């Protein structure tokens, strides 16, 4: 994985195709009586890197968790890779195996070694032979630069290393879309960059990515679209240059001044 020190120019960035990867239409979700997501319309094209930001409680995590059905939406449609999400469990499992997810708290399996964490899903879901799954796992562990930890257990690794393993674990399923739910929020400051570097490398390879994050530097560097959410709605979306340089809504301006102000 070519992880260059400099940010790639926009012109060098991988091409976004006009093939639709995720299509969300008029999606609504309630927690009991609380309306968390309101009329979400979002089309993600293959190869897009989208950063979703917004104040806490704005529904940004819920939005990406709806995409792989970790949360159930009540109204509207979500189409992933041409498959419409329904409550059919086979359908859900199919979408989940195509969509990788990285969590805030890593959620590695503590009773399995790093290598077993990475090979488990390919072996059981994809029915990959063990040998082949291990080769794939080592390939991705090398990509996230921790092949030497393969035989350790998650508890023996630092937070940054655990999160990189979590990314490798998702990649082992060869997903076409990656979802990141605040991947750096639970990390010590000095470990954030190692995880972001991994994500940048992934973006450069043309992975379709949706990232919920507050790392605005990352958003400027790799995103080709930034989405700002508040109170369960998409308030503003734009290219990063425009979004940071020339925000339109007052809510966005306030948010940006709060997180960039110091």
């Amino acid at each position, binding site marked *: 994985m070519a992880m260059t020190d400099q940010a790639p120019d926009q012109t060098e960035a991988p091409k976004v195709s006009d093939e639709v990867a995720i299509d969300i239409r008029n999606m609504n979700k309630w927690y009991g009586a609380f309306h968390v997501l309101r009329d979400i319309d979002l089309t993600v094209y293959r190869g897009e890197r989208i950063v979703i930001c917004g104040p806490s409680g704005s529904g940004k995590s819920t939005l990406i968790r709806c995409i*792989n*059905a*970790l949360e159930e939406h009540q109204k509207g449609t979500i189409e992933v890779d041409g498959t419409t999400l329904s409550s059919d*469990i086979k359908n859900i*499992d*199919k979408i*989940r*195996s195509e*969509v*990788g*997810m990285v*969590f805030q*708290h*890593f*959620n*590695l*399996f*503590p*009773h399995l070694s790093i290598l077993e964490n990475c090979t*488990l*899903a390919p072996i*059981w*879901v994809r029915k990959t032979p063990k040998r082949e799954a291990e080769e794939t796992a080592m390939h991705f562990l090398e990509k996230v630069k921790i092949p030497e930890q393969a035989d350790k*257990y*998650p*508890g*023996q690794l630092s937070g940054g290393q655990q999160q990189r393993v979590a990314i490798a*674990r*998702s990649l082992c*399923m060869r997903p076409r879309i990656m979802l990141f739910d605040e991947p750096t929020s639970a990390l010590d400051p000095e470990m954030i960059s190692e995880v972001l570097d991994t994500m940048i490398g992934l973006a450069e390879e043309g992975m379709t990515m949706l990232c919920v994050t507050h790392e605005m530097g990352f958003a400027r560097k790799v995103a080709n679209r930034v989405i700002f959410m508040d109170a369960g709605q998409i308030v503003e979306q734009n290219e990063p240059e425009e979004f940071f340089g020339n925000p339109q809504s007052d809510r966005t301006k306030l948010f940006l001044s709060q997180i960039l102000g110091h």
Partner: protein
Amino acid sequence: MTTSAPRSPAFVRHEPLPPQAPPVAETGMIKWVRENLFSSIPNGILTVAAIWAIYSLLSVLLPWIFNGVWSAESVRDCNEQLAGASGGCFAAIGATWRQMVFGIYPNDIYWRPVTAFVLLGVAFAPVLFQNVPRKLLYFTLLYPFVAYWLVWGGSLLVPVTALLGVVLGYVVYSRLVEQSFAMGFFGGIVSALVFWWLSGFVVGEETNVLALSQVETRNIGGFMLNMILGVVCVSLSLPLGIVLALGRQSSMPIIKWICVVFIEFVRGVPLITLLFVANVVLAYFLPPGTNFDLILRVIIMITMFAGAYIAEVIRGGLAALPRGQYEAADSLGLDYAQAMRLIILPQALKISIPGIVNVAVGLFKDTTLVSVISMFDLVGIIRGPILSSTEWSGVYWEVFGFAALLFFIVCYGISQYSQWLERQLATDRQ
């Protein structure tokens, strides 16, 4: 104006100081005694009181043990030999241990339960220890049928058809489970039942094929009966408990409520009541003429009882797992059965080990309750035939002490194993 601090004199050590022996009061026995036994006045008083209590206990117990009579014809003979001195009549153990261990099992075929017991160790080895060859698990699967044949005897056809029924049920299950779990589950059970029903006609005729002499259930007793009940019920109640615990967490309301009602009902009823039900009441519900073995009925009741408790222990383990583990398993595309088997249960069971062992040890000791429904288990045989015999009436301490020792050895072994297992599985520690 500033006052300069007094200048510290320069110092260089050229010869390192050799280590010296610590003062006597800081080492060995004296230090330990002072710190642990007499660190304060109340502590000192407690120490003296404890020493006095231990002394008065041992001053009775030790003479009783060392004066004990090891060979005597009867309790009267014992008393004559002791001539008024304090001492145990351990001859009773020597004279009755066969009864206590085997009940009224025929003397000449003790080798059969003993073989079954030895094979039990072989069958459990691959389950309990990871480094035992995995191939032995096949023997573990065969063991219940072998053990049944050895202990109860009869034609080899009985356990073989039972085994074939299980195999058939499993084959049907694995064929149908691709389509739906429920179909596989019920298809497997039904095909096994049909097979057993049909083979009943054949086996009923051929009672002499490779037959061992048959032993009636009422002749099976003593510690052997406790072991049979304990091993069978623990082995069965663990899977039952897992199923109940998962069922209680199910999102399907009917399954959830069946499990909740079952668990709460069984936990709310004393075991002894369930045993009475097994002994007396169940017979009214069965069609007349069915020979439904009493041990089987008791096993069902104890298993249900222990299963409900284990289910609650495992539920605690499941609840202790962070939600993220479920979500991570889901997000990788694992289906429910895979997520449970590979991710959730290994962790939940590990957390539950102390609780499960607690239930298992309790259950093993509770098997002595069957003496109340007049089965001659270890306690039953002591209270009944042994203590009411003319030779050994009144030797409570000696024989009950022996019974306690047998139970203690097994329970302490289980407890030690579980602690060892916890250490083996401690991978998530830093």
